[in-house]
């Protein structure tokens, strides 16, 4: 498959994958999680990764974050090796589980990245208080995770991912465990955060509506083996607000994504 380069020629891509293949040895033999993935994500863009379970979308995110090393192929993050980008704190990661440390307050959780791995040298422009306010949690600084709702915990996790001022934000189904109303609100707020920070976002989801609403582009992946199916550009006006989902364009797009997904 040809490299699906969507960046303009003048700017260097935030993420550039060339022929990335990832094989795992499992109890049932060798699984090909990713097969020959080539994709370039322009800086400052918002890409959603959509596909059935087993299509390797989380694996791809972990390869970009240097949590996994590909079997073959090369990955470049912000013009460097993923390892360099990780060590320079240019990557923020948000997991499906907020993964907050239960013995730390909200603000202590946000500051965790500054306390380990030489993070103090990579302090971003915004303070922990400012970031908590950015994600709508002003006044909740001293609350412990068990005092927060699922949505609030995920907001803390987003603030934590932004504390070092990353240029790339990787999100692995961050709102997958939340109720629909909370998820909708967080989707809208995430677009605000994206607009105000200028960060590049790679967002994994299994929700068609979430993928279409958030992404400037939707990368559709097929399963077994995980491979690129199609890169769909979303032509919806921005800044996007939730009512855009009732427009004809959005419904058509979602319908199209569903049709492609059914063949993945």
């Amino acid at each position: 498959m040809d490299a699906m380069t969507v960046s303009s020629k003048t700017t260097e891509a935030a993420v550039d994958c060339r022929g990335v293949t990832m094989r795992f040895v499992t109890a049932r033999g060798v699984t090909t999680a990713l097969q020959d993935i080539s994709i370039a994500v322009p800086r400052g863009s918002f890409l959603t990764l959509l596909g059935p379970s087993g299509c390797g979308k989380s694996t791809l995110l972990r390869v970009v974050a240097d949590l996994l090393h590909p079997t073959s192929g090369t990955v470049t993050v912000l013009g460097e090796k993923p390892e360099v980008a990780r060590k320079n704190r240019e990557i923020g990661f948000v997991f499906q589980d907020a993964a907050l440390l239960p013995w730390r307050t909200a603000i202590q959780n946000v500051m965790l990245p500054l306390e380990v791995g030489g993070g103090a040298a990579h302090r971003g422009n915004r303070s922990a208080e400012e970031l908590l306010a950015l994600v709508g949690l002003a006044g909740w600084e001293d609350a412990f995770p068990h005092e927060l709702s699922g949505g609030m915990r995920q907001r803390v996790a987003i603030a934590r991912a932004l504390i070092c001022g990353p240029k790339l934000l990787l999100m692995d189904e961050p709102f997958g465990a939340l109720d629909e109303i909370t998820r909708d609100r967080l989707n809208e707020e995430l677009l605000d955060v994206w607009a105000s920070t200028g960060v590049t976002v790679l967002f994994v989801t299994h929700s068609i509506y979430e993928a279409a609403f958030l992404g400037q582009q939707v990368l559709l992946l097929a399963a077994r083996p995980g491979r690129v199916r199609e890169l769909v550009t979303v032509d919806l006006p921005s800044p996007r607000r939730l009512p855009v989902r009732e427009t004809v364009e959005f419904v058509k797009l979602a319908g199209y994504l569903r049709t492609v997904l059914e063949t993945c």
Partner: protein
Amino acid sequence: MSAPVEKVSVAAISEADQAALAVDAARRSRLKWRKRLLPVLAVLCIGILWWQAVTQLGVKPFIAPSPLAVAQVFVTRFHMMLVNLAPTALEAVVGFVLGNTIAVLIATAFVQRKVVEEAFYPVALMVNTIPIVASAPILVLLLGNGIAPKVAISAIICFFPTLVNMTRGFRDVNPQALELMRVLSASDWEVFFKVRVKNALPFLFSALRITASTSVIGAIVGEWIGTNVGIGALIIQATYSFDSALLYASVVMGSALALLFFGIISVAETRIIKWNVAQAR
């Protein structure tokens, strides 16, 4: 998704809310007192049953004493009991601290270096399978007649539960928290101190609750061999002189000591682990 705790000022509470709060407070206090009083009642009932059984069935005093005779021992021979309680308590405390400290350090080595665990876990398991009554004489031969063998036995009996629990507590960490630490390029020791230690605290306390009582058992078993002070020595003397009242009183004292340790650990746990207690509620 749990609702966030609202911080409402007292002035803002309506009368209806106040009534609801009062009802709730009354219910809580009732439950708290029930939890405190029921065990006392149960102990009293068992005591009365025991007393009635001994008197009604005409059991000889040297076979089983009445609870009154046991209580009398505490009154008439109080000083002698205290003199024998002190060495056992000391041995149990030192053994408890020593055994648990070594267990935590070895668990740390196990978690930080998998090879150490692969080499030494089977050894620890083997040591644990030796019955304490068998290792006690060996330790007395090795360490003499003083406090050392009692402390050693108490420490050995405390060691294994804490080793197993702490190894699990250090390991059983949210995998996404570990991935987060890798994204943050944290070192092994940073992961250990920032994540694993706090994560293992609830496991540590459940081990400490177990070992609080077993440390006393270890000290008593140690005193069975070659000593003439301590609860263990008292038990042996009372048995050979058919002084069943003293025997039972010694047993009660030993178990009171273990309960005291257990209580101290429980209080420490609620003071230290704020987050876990709150989550369990």
